[in-house]
């Protein structure tokens, strides 16, 4: 598996799109740091971008990478290797290269700015972690969707729908149901509902860390009220880990039963 991981990673690291992706973060972070001297504001601005962009790019890359490397995967399948190590290796290479783009693109400007000397070091690290978690989660989901759908257009469509659902539609539904049923105690429902959306969870995690009540929203406030800041962060981190593991397990399962 490590061999496959290494080659997928280096294959992707040299792709034009990885450079563009990394360059975008680099430019964006640099200009934010230039425009604002308040590091926590920069972290919040970046958070808003990352919550949409990381999942979107991970989804697109995941589907594209799977379909583009299909013939190569067939070559690997004919080699004396386990199926699961081929697919998990490819997935980890993909998620790893996306995370590397993100870490370099945003990390380098922050470090150069001297974030580790400031009070914002913890917030910055949480932001980094969330970018990595979202890259892993959404590339796993995309990989799984691509693995399940031979038809590229269908696969692309479904993957985009999944992103749209978690990034936009889910919150809309949640808000609608909260305002519709506002006569009832909804805290527990909201708490459970936010577990089912990794983007929401990431937002809560970073806002708990930043401790900004005004931006927390209903679910964030519920998290803090019920679990407290420390436990709230631990729970959201734990559930994010489950969000990585479940689709990864799905990739393993589907790859063992598929014909190529």
């Amino acid at each position: 598996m490590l061999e496959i991981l290494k080659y997928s990673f280096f294959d992707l690291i040299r792709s034009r799109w990885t450079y563009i992706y990394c360059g975008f973060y680099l430019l964006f972070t640099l200009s934010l740091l230039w425009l604002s001297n308040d590091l926590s504001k920069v972290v919040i601005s970046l958070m808003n971008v990352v919550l949409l962009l990381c999942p979107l790019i991970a989804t697109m890359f995941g589907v594209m990478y799977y379909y583009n490397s299909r013939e190569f995967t067939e070559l690997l399948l004919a080699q004396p290797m386990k199926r699961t190590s081929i697919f998990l290796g490819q997935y980890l290479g993909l998620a790893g290269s996306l995370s590397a783009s993100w870490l370099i693109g945003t990390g380098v400007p922050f470090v150069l700015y001297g974030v580790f000397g400031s009070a914002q070091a913890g917030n910055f690290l949480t932001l980094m972690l969330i970018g990595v978690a979202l890259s892993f989660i959404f590339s796993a989901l995309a990989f799984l969707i691509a693995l399940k759908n031979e038809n590229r257009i269908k696969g692309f469509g479904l993957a985009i729908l999944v992103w749209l659902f978690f990034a936009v539609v889910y919150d809309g539904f949640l808000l609608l149901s909260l305002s519709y049923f506002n006569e009832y105690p909804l805290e527990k429902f909201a708490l459970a509902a936010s577990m089912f959306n990794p983007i929401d969870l990431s937002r809560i995690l970073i806002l708990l860390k930043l401790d900004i009540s005004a931006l927390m929203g209903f679910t964030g406030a519920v998290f803090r009220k019920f679990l407290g800041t420390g436990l709230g962060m631990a729970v959201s981190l734990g559930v994010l880990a489950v969000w990585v593991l479940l689709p990864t397990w799905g990739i393993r399962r589907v790859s063992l039963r598929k014909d190529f």
Partner: protein
Amino acid sequence: MISIHHLHKSFGKNHVLKGVDLDFDKPGITAVLGPNGSGKTTLIKSILGMVLPSEGTIEVAGKNIKGQWKYRRQIAYLPQIARFPDNLKVKELLGMIKDLRVGPSDEELLIDQFELRPFLDSRLANLSGGTRQKVNLVLTFMYDCPIIILDEPTAGLDPISMVRLKELIEHQRALGKTILITTHVMSLVEELADEVVYLLEGHIHFRGSLKTLKETYGEASVERAIASLLERQKGKLEFSSNGHQTFVLA
């Protein structure tokens, strides 16, 4: 070496292989022939474990291959379409396969034979289809495996490489290997094959030596023999669907 028993495979409603029984126990070259969509590639991919049988068993070197992967060390496989990661260089791809497969490999001679040396530092995306097929061939033949499976090996090759390929295959036969080839190029079959398996609509319709094939159908070339095999088959189908009509076999 390979023994296939009662192999069925369906993709959804499409029943591709309908009970294939085959044994490849003697060394030599077997050509697997059949029209497009007759199940040749599915059969080959089943042997490699890429396609999972709906029913039936496949044994390689006496062991059932279900859920196994180590047996593939004994198989060299040339896939039908040669597509590789675009960003890798030829040299890196070779290095990668060498990393993945244990044991000694012998690619230097093959690289010279197929005149690939000038391309070693090129990215695979920039290679022409024929050159990629040559890379594919080097990857296949650089390991010493007792079983060799070639799916359309001649696709996109120029005449010189074609000659080299034939020499290579003959050399492997001389080493006592079991070789399976699917192809639509009948001249290749005529020159190389010891035996022919003819697959049609998921059944094996003929298996035997080239000579038997030609004699059975009273034709001078494989191409014509196959054509008359197909015609008879059509005749049989018509006959069975219109039972009341009398139909004389050619």
